[in-house]
């Protein structure tokens, strides 16, 4: 299955992906309204690692694991892995126990600002296109298969 991969050699840390993630997962689907008025947490986020001479940035989001720990840990059956391989959270079933947040080995599930909802990457399947990938100004995030050429060729 295709996943979103981040290439830290290319990531500028501009965080535009976060802006567009919020837009894609908003009710209004309007970039200004989504970011100004809707209380959404981005499902992709830029980690900053401060090194000796520079800062390394990389985008982090759900890896859609083969055996997802979050699904196992979910007490209400809200978190599930679909036939398409995408791990999703059914917000209607979610009881906000935050077990998934606790067990995710990547820290890729975030708690919303209200402390009740969780946000995680669903590859924007319902939206039609992964907005973070489309709007990355430096091609640092890509929606690709795990055996894509760019991993083997050594050139991104």
């Amino acid at each position: 299955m295709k996943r979103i991969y981040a290439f830290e050699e290319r990531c500028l840390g501009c965080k535009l992906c976060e802006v567009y993630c919020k837009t894609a997962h908003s009710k209004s689907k309007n970039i200004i309204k989504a970011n100004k008025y809707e209380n959404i947490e981005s499902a992709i986020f830029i980690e900053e690692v401060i090194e000796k001479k520079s800062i390394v940035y990389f985008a982090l989001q759900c890896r859609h694991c083969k055996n997802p720990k979050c699904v196992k840990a979910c007490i209400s059956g809200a978190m599930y892995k679909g036939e398409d391989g995408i791990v999703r959270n059914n917000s209607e079933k979610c009881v906000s126990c935050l077990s998934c947040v606790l067990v995710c080995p990547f820290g890729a599930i975030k708690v919303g600002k209200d402390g009740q909802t969780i946000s995680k990457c669903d590859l924007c399947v319902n939206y039609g296109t992964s907005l973070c990938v489309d709007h990355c100004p430096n091609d640092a995030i890509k929606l690709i298969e795990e055996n894509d050429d760019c991993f083997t060729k050594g050139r991104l």
Partner: protein
Amino acid sequence: MSLDFDVPSFEILRNKNKCIQCKVCIRQCANMVHFYDKDDNIVCSNNVYCVNCHRCVTLCPTKALIVRKYPLEFRENANWNGAAIREIYKQAKSGGVLLSSMGTTKAFPIYWDKMLLNASQVTNPSIDPLREPMETKVLIGRKPNVIPFDDNDELKTTMPPQIELNIPIMFAGMSYGSISKNAHESLARAATELGTCYNTGEGGLHKDFYKYGNNTIVQVASGRFGVHKDYLNAGVGIEIKIGQGAKPGIGGHLPGKKVGEDVSLTRMIPIGSDAISPAPHHDIYSIEDLRQLIFSLKETTEYRKPIFVKIAAVHNAAAIASGIARAGADAIVIDGFRGGTGAAPTRIRDNVGIPIELALASIDQRLHEEGIRNCVSLIISGSIRNSSDIVKAIALGADAVYIGSAALIALGCHMCHSCSTGKCNWGIATQDPSLVKRLNPDIMYKRLINLITAWNHEIQEMLGGMGINAIDSLKGNRLMLRGIGLNEKELHILGIKHAGE
């Protein structure tokens, strides 16, 4: 001293209704113009530092930003205008030479725009390049004086070394150091894919780029940075740089802060040391000296590579070019006074040199008159802005052109004229790793290819319109040009008729 006469050059207008406080502008500005005010939850801007590079404007996801000229006016005065006054403030503060980047901003006449091309009507058919073959290939190098045949009518000529270009456009010399490694990689990969050449500039050749050697011209300039035997043999040609259009008669200076580990290795100088290129080559004081260098380089490369000599277009360019041709060069590069640079003294950039159009016309004419035009290829540079400039240059007698500024603009340069600061927000004229990263060669080499491919299509269209199916048939064909709004003297120098004649 607290008194500072500096006022902003630009003003940033932020549409508060559109700004979502995503802070992308803050993170993307190397000049630290934007900042976040936590108390009011707004992003603000400090106009003084803005150079108008458009990085924030381009990346702002809601297009909430506009950069415009700062509206502060001095009292109107045609002589003492704002720019003149500000330059004095600057020098009175710094005590230094004024520095500028990129080509001159002064409104000198652009002769390309005063020449018009011909097209076929009725008496000779025009050619549709989409349906019929059209040759844009050029060969750069010395052409033999005679073409002798033996008794069996077989060609006896041995051709001097030639560089075959699919298109008459090459990327001009811009050194690694003045521009970033990613910019160089983009140029190298684009040149390789297009079947043309890029020029290393005088900063040596990074070890990662030797593989693009078949599409590389290596440069030997007065600083001799990074010059060694492998380097000289790495490319398909060698260019001796005597002068540069933006700063004829002036050397170069790469500040030590741009000389990091990689640049230091490539240039063969210590990390952090200023790389100063002297104004003259200290071993060239005459045409005879130049001949010695040309032949030393030919010896080193076993006479397999054409040697270019690059000069700035100056008053006696025609006579100098004649000397260069006789000194044994295989190609002459002439760089006009509108050419770009990473940094040049403003007074030099804006006042020294002559327009490339006039220099080209007079050099081509002179070489023809002396019967040595075949000895050299003529390559011109210095603000080639589009494909019609190229067609006009070829009709005036050029074999090919170099593009520098245009290539950088394709890579994202927004002509903010701040190369010398080393804070290029587009990752071009900088060595700061966090800024260099912004230029992704995978994206940018394709943009270069797109640009040149588009220009090549346009060149073919224009050639076809004139009823010509090969670029060689246009070379020096000045009857295809007509002047518009030019005086007798200008027409005479350009060797063209006025429109209507």
